[in-house]
């Protein structure tokens, strides 16, 4: 019974820590940005670069951009992947798109950054981009015969032209400003502009109660629940309730609850951006530069959003709400389970297996990533757990590259579209390239000569590009045989 309570406590503590201020300041804007990307960026503005006749120096970057900007959910990933492969730019760009989408989208990047640090998020982004294009090029080189045999179908699917409206760009940029203002750890955002002490005598006692409910061990890297955290959790529950009434039928128009939910979301961000410290005199509220910046950025969002037409902002709010429904619940459950599992894993196991940056450690990380399937974004708290338990950052990156890209589900889906031989090649390449990515990043962290790493990766891509352009120039002759 004691063990059971101990495990439940681990789960609850982990969950509470993940609902802390810095995570919400990243996740809440990220959900709105993801919704805005899905609803406000017209797909033809990017897909027109993915037609059959696009040169490869255009189609590969465009495929990566599509993965980053358009594909936040599987509703877009699968059809767009099949469309690019069968009717558009071909196998290589389709693979680049498929590989980059789970790592390059705004939710994954923002969440990785807030949990594992900005440097790690950047490494994940840059190496996924590089190897996404690399794997796409390799597949195109290996299976070039197949692409050449595709008959010249009509290009209508990718012929549409569209531009992003000025108001939509304004909304996207000011939302990104909210995200940046909420997450950067820089002066003047961290400066304290003034403090007010609210006469709330129960504040200190409440903090003591919270610490008693969720005991934590700072030495093990655990975080407890602060008074601010408990306030934020309350606000989140209220948002959930009001959003259910206000956003479920947003497509047909807004109602009173819509504005309540949006107001609560804004309030959550402001509370998260302030610093609340319980003391003997009451609750000390510090107005930070961050709170001012977040407030200004949210005012900018409102200003631009008012210029969107009704269909556009309704679609935006619906997409944002849909992402919350689809991802947030699974994320909460996932974080809870990770907290429990963490109590059961001995740090020695992880340190022995993957505490160093060598080939075996990276291979183990990749195999784990392929065989385990976690819902969207849950791979990040899992990675955080491994990091705390002593995993080296190199194998950790290898795991983060392999896990969302490869799961049984995605392998089956890809096989249905491109067939088994290509799928197995793809899986093999992802495993191989993830190991290389892990080894490179691990060496970087360990302080190896950085010119060598960058030079080596650059040479590798240059060789692939040369191979592909050679094939493209010579493909006309063998294709007729």
């Amino acid at each position, binding site marked *: 019974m004691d063990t059971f309570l101990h495990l439940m406590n681990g789960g609850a503590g982990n969950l509470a820590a993940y609902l802390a201020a810095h995570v919400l300041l990243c996740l809440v804007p990220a959900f709105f940005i993801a919704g805005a990307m899905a609803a406000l960026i017209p797909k033809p503005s990017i897909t027109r670069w993915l037609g059959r006749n696009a040169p490869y120096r255009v189609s590969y970057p465009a495929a990566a951009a599509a993965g980053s900007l358009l594909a936040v959910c599987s509703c877009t990933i699968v*059809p767009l992947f099949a469309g690019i492969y069968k009717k558009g730019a071909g196998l290589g760009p389709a693979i680049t798109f498929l590989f980059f989408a789970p790592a390059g989208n705004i939710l994954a990047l923002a969440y990785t950054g807030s949990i594992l640090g900005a440097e790690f998020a950047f490494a994940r982004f840059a190496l996924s981009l590089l190897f996404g294009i690399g794997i796409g090029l390799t597949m195109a080189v290996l299976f070039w015969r197949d692409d050449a045999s595709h008959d010249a179908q009509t290009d209508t699917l990718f012929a549409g032209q569209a531009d992003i409206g000025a108001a939509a760009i304004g909304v996207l940029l000011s939302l990104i400003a909210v995200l940046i203002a909420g997450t950067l750890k820089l002066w003047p955002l961290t400066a304290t502009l003034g403090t007010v002490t609210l006469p709330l005598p129960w504040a200190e006692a409440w903090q003591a109660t919270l610490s008693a409910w969720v005991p934590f061990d700072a030495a093990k890297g655990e975080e407890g629940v602060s008074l601010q955290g408990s306030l934020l959790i309350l606000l989140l529950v209220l948002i959930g309730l009001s959003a259910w009434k206000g956003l479920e039928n947003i497509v*047909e128009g807004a109602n009173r609850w819509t504005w309540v939910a949006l107001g609560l979301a804004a309030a959550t961000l402001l509370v998260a951006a302030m610093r609340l410290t319980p003391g003997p005199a009451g609750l000390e509220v510090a107005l930070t530069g961050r709170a001012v910046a977040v407030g200004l950025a949210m005012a900018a969002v409102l200003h631009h959003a008012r210029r969107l037409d009704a269909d556009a902002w309704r679609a935006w709010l619906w997409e944002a709400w849909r992402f919350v429904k689809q991802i947030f619940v699974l994320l909460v459950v996932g974080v809870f389970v990770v907290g429990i599992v963490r109590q059961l894993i001995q740090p020695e196991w992880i340190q022995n297996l993957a505490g160093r940056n060598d080939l075996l450690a990276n291979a183990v990380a990749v195999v784990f990533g392929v065989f385990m399937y976690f819902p969207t974004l849950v791979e990040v708290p899992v990675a955080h757990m491994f990091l705390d338990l002593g995993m080296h950052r190199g194998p950790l990156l290898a795991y983060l590259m392999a896990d969302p890209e490869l799961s049984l589900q995605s392998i089956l889906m890809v096989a*249905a579209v491109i067939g088994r031989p290509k799928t197995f090649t793809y899986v093999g390449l992802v495993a191989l390239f993830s190991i290389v990515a892990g080894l490179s990043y691990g060496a970087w962290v360990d302080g190896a000569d950085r010119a060598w790493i960058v030079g080596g990766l650059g040479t590798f891509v240059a060789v692939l590009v040369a191979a592909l352009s050679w094939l493209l120039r010579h493909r006309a002759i063998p294709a007729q045989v």
Partner: protein
Amino acid sequence: MKTIKILGSGCANCKKLEAVAREAAASAGIEADFVKVTDMKAMMAYDLLSTPGLVIDDKLVSSGRIPTQAEVRQWLAA
């Protein structure tokens, strides 16, 4: 008698689209046969790059978004 196809893998948007389409058909008093298409190959027969897609009498009328009931009624009347 119209045939309405919902293209999509069963994600939240596809269910929402089906609900909107059903209500639109009912409110316009149009009898319609609803077909759910979940097979990727069958979906790719239509020119769409993201789900959910709405097909009325074998013509793709919208994809990648949820139309309003008013829009669906117009398409049904056409």
